[in-house]
């Protein structure tokens, strides 16, 4: 009977013709660990498709076979291809540069492997980095990401011909490295901290575009040092040559941080956004005086700097959206993490941020007390997430709007030792662990249409209303007009997740364990 069933199953499997399914459904998903196995394919800021990666069968003792299915932005299945990987291979990241997919795998025994596939599923090349050649910090990072299902964010598409990877150098001292690969996964250039340097240096890529790579470099005498000197690094994306590296303010003149950067146009100047501090103030514990924007030319020369002070400029914008209670709260120090920058067709600039502040974490303290000071891994500090923030500037960098968009306050735990982190580092950490309520921004530059989507923990539309399964907040910017609304979403399966979708939509994935299938459907969020 068992044999017969298998035979029939196989006959059916082989003879099956594609059905005109109503929704995108992926069948025979024998193993589906988490939503990270699905994702969006982004090309020039625009979501152009989706992928799903799932286990198919064991090939031999060492290898398993996986199936990757690629859909366009309407969930039309375009390509399915099989990839045979060592069974312990972990897919850390998938990036699409408009032409080629780069898949980043990690295997505890063999190390990193970067494989590129073209749109037809043809393997173009691969590049291996032996486990022994990976820095211990790199290994710590991948381990943390694997354990906590965090998205690895280290690969960036430069243009449709190359990728850049941010990593840690294999030095005695902690250092950084940026490595670029072509579409055949061959290394084309490498840049990084000086191996002879006596300082500890780390890098955070701020932005990658077809011409520049902007990054923040932190330099400290040792790992435990509280204070670090912050540098702004500008690289040529084609060659990896350093265009400029300059310190972001000194103690005497006041320090600066860098939060975001973007190109004014494809061949235009670069704009960086950050916070500035009072002379002598500490990035870690003090609140900044305000924000600044800086225009930089292709040689790294500063052309213009505009400052916006919290008191004097920003506080002039009255907050009509938030309650009196909220307004009081806002007087206390809140940092802003900037998730995205939008520049519309009229040259208007929008900064999309989220408020957060460090506070004592009751859960962290309790855990530490319970553990009798033996360390629970949790910090006595937590992070309270506040409202969404939208700042508007005209093309001459004049601030034209500052709005707080209320959402329910939530808290995120921090790991041990996080008490001494700077707000910038804390923000990056929160981003890395997916701690913010912000979900994604979908952009359609051609139609001048942008949607910022976040999750609101207040799942009721009104006090009397029942809770919906998910409550989304949507800030939409279309043709220079900004609107916001809260959108309830309902789902059928208990195992669901959200993916970004084209502007105005959200993609919902639902996994049915019994039927071994995944259903995808898109829902309109903005009409």
């Amino acid at each position, binding site marked *: 009977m068992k044999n017969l069933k298998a035979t029939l199953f196989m006959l059916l499997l082989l003879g099956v013709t594609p059905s005109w399914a109503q929704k995108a459904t992926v069948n025979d998903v024998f193993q589906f660990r988490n939503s990270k196995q699905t994702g969006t*394919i982004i090309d020039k800021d625009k979501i152009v498709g989706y992928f799903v990666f799932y286990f198919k069968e064991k090939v031999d003792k060492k290898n398993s076979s996986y199936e990757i299915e690629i859909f366009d932005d309407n969930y039309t299945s375009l390509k399915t291809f099989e990839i045979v990987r060592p069974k312990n291979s972990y897919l850390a990241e998938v990036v699409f540069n408009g032409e080629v997919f780069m898949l980043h795998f990690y295997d505890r025994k063999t190390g990193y492997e970067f494989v590129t596939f073209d749109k037809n599923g043809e393997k173009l090349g691969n590049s291996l980095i032996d486990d022994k050649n990976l820095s211990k910090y790199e290994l710590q990072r991948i381990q943390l990401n694997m354990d906590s299902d965090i998205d690895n964010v280290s690969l960036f598409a430069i243009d449709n011909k190359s990728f850049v990877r941010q990593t840690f150098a294999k030095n005695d001292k902690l250092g950084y490295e940026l490595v670029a690969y072509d579409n055949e996964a061959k290394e084309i250039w490498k840049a990084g901290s000086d191996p002879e340097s006596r300082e500890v240096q780390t890098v955070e890529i701020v932005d990658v575009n077809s011409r520049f790579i902007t990054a923040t470099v932190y330099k400290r005498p040792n790992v435990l040092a509280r204070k670090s000197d912050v540098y702004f690094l500008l690289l040529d994306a084609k060659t990896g040559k350093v265009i400029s590296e300059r310190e972001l303010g000194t103690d005497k003149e006041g320090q600066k941080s860098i939060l975001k950067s973007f190109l004014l146009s494809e061949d235009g100047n670069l704009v960086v956004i950050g916070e500035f501090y009072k002379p002598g103030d500490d990035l870690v514990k003090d609140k900044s005086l305000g924000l600044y924007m800086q225009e930089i030319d292709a040689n790294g020369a500063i052309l213009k700097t505009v400052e916006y002070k919290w008191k004097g400029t920003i506080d002039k914008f009255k907050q009509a959206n938030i309650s009196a209670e909220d307004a009081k709260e806002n007087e206390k120090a809140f940092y802003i993490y900037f998730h995205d920058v939008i520049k519309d067709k009229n040259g208007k600039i929008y900064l999309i941020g989220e408020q957060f502040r460090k506070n004592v974490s009751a859960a962290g303290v309790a855990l530490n007390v319970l553990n009798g000071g033996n360390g629970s891994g949790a910090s006595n500090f937590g992070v309270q997430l506040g409202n969404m923030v939208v700042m508007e500037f005209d093309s001459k960098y004049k601030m034209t709007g500052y709005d707080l968009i209320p959402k329910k306050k939530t808290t995120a735990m921090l790991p041990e030792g996080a008490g001494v982190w700077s707000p910038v580092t804390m923000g990056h950490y929160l981003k890395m662990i997916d701690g913010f309520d912000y979900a994604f921004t979908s952009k359609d530059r051609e139609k001048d249409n942008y949607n910022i989507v976040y999750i609101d923990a207040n799942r009721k539309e009104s006090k009397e209303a029942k809770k919906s399964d998910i409550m989304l907040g949507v800030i939409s910017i279309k043709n220079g007009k900004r609107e916001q609304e809260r959108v309830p979403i309902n789902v059928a399966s208990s195992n669901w997740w959200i993916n970004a979708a084209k502007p105005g939509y959200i993609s919902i994935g639902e996994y049915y364990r019994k039927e071994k299938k995944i259903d995808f459907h898109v829902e309109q969020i903005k009409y």
Partner: protein
Amino acid sequence: MRSTLVLILFLVGFIQVFWSQKSQLLGFKPQLNPTSEPYLEYVKEHTTKESVYFYDSLNWFDKEKVKRLLEERLKSKQKLLESNNIITDGPIYTFLDGILQKLKSANPDIPQDAKIVLYRDDSFNASTFGDGLIFVNLGLLYKLKNEDQVALVLGHELGHNTARHTLENLQAQLLAEKDVALRKEIKLAILKPYGNITALNDLLRPRVYALKEKSRMDEFEADSLGFLYFSRAGYSAEKALSMFYAMEHSREERNKSSLDVLKLFKIDSLSDLGLKYKQYTRETSLGMGLDTPDDNPYLLSHPYEKDRLNKLLVLAGLNKFDSIVKEIDPSYRFISYQTDGEMLTSSLMNDDFSRAFFYALNMANDYENDMYSREHLAYILSSLALYKKTRQAGKYLRLQKLWYDESFDRIVYFLQCLSPINALDLGRTVWSDWCKEDEAEQAYNAARLGFYYLEDQLERCSISLETYKELNSHVIYKKFYEAVQSDFIISGKAKKVNYKK
């Protein structure tokens, strides 16, 4: 004088025929209460006959196997027959049965107990289990143009039955089961700790190719037999053979001209919705071509349509074939109208609002005074307003696909573009433009009331369509409500609620 009289008589006769046809065309009623009992008995009886066919040459052990195989097949047949998807009565059924009777009486040598089951499926297909029961899909009738084409299809299925193709396939399956070496290899492949899917594929692929090859040969044989039965019954090859053209283009919609929804619903082309709709595009965002896995000719279960047509042309003694029937035969128009109505009903039964909307729109466009399609357009739009409001519409609406015909793809896109308010307003347009004024106003007010009542009073995130209908039964206008109620019964999901005046 005489000629004038003849002319007048002819005109009177023509007008009478025209009117009777026209009035016959309107007032579609879905066939929702299938009677499966006679068919269930029929398949049971035939299973016994089939077992006799096998038993003569078998030992006890193999008889048990055959018994089990036949039982499994019987169960799947019963499942099909007990579902709400069959139609066993009504004008389409009578029409099909009439053709079958004609074929049977012209061919006394074929089994005379063959029966028809009309099946709710929008694919272009008809099938048989080999026992004389012929399943005809609605999607087939939807695309055909005249009675002769239907007769050719039925003849083909009868051909399968007389040639005992299904029983032969069963026999092959039995032989495969008896094949000890194969069983051993399958077992080994399954027990393999690694690569069992690939191993099974490699093992079975040659067999699958052989099975497909046999299946293609069977189709040719059924074609020739069917053509013989069909010719004996006096049907015309010229009229029927363009059926293969319809089959080859079965992915294309019947009405190739795109429905201009902006014009139909009087939507201002400069309004938000109008502008959005004009942005329609078919390109895929990733710029890749589609996979066409069925391109492998060795895996096709049916031969290419052109090959089948050429073989039949030889039988028919025709040198070439160039008269593709494009127009629906006037005598087939009534069946076509009924099929449109059933296609719309079936789509709603499957919660496929995109298809239902498309069929309803086509039907309303083709038949000026048809109320069924109009009521359903209003119903679909107001339900959609609710689903859009609660962000569940994605489960009921299709997404754009490259392989859809453009006319349908545009409708899919249009429905995606609608906001809840748009959907509600369009419902109103349907009523006010296509129905009597006072009725329209009442119907619209009822739908609007329901919608806002829902928005204000209910936890709008957790309400289902059924609750919505129930809650609104007291305010929904009778006629509209009846349409909703019939859908209630169709979907079989909700309780019947008595309408109160």
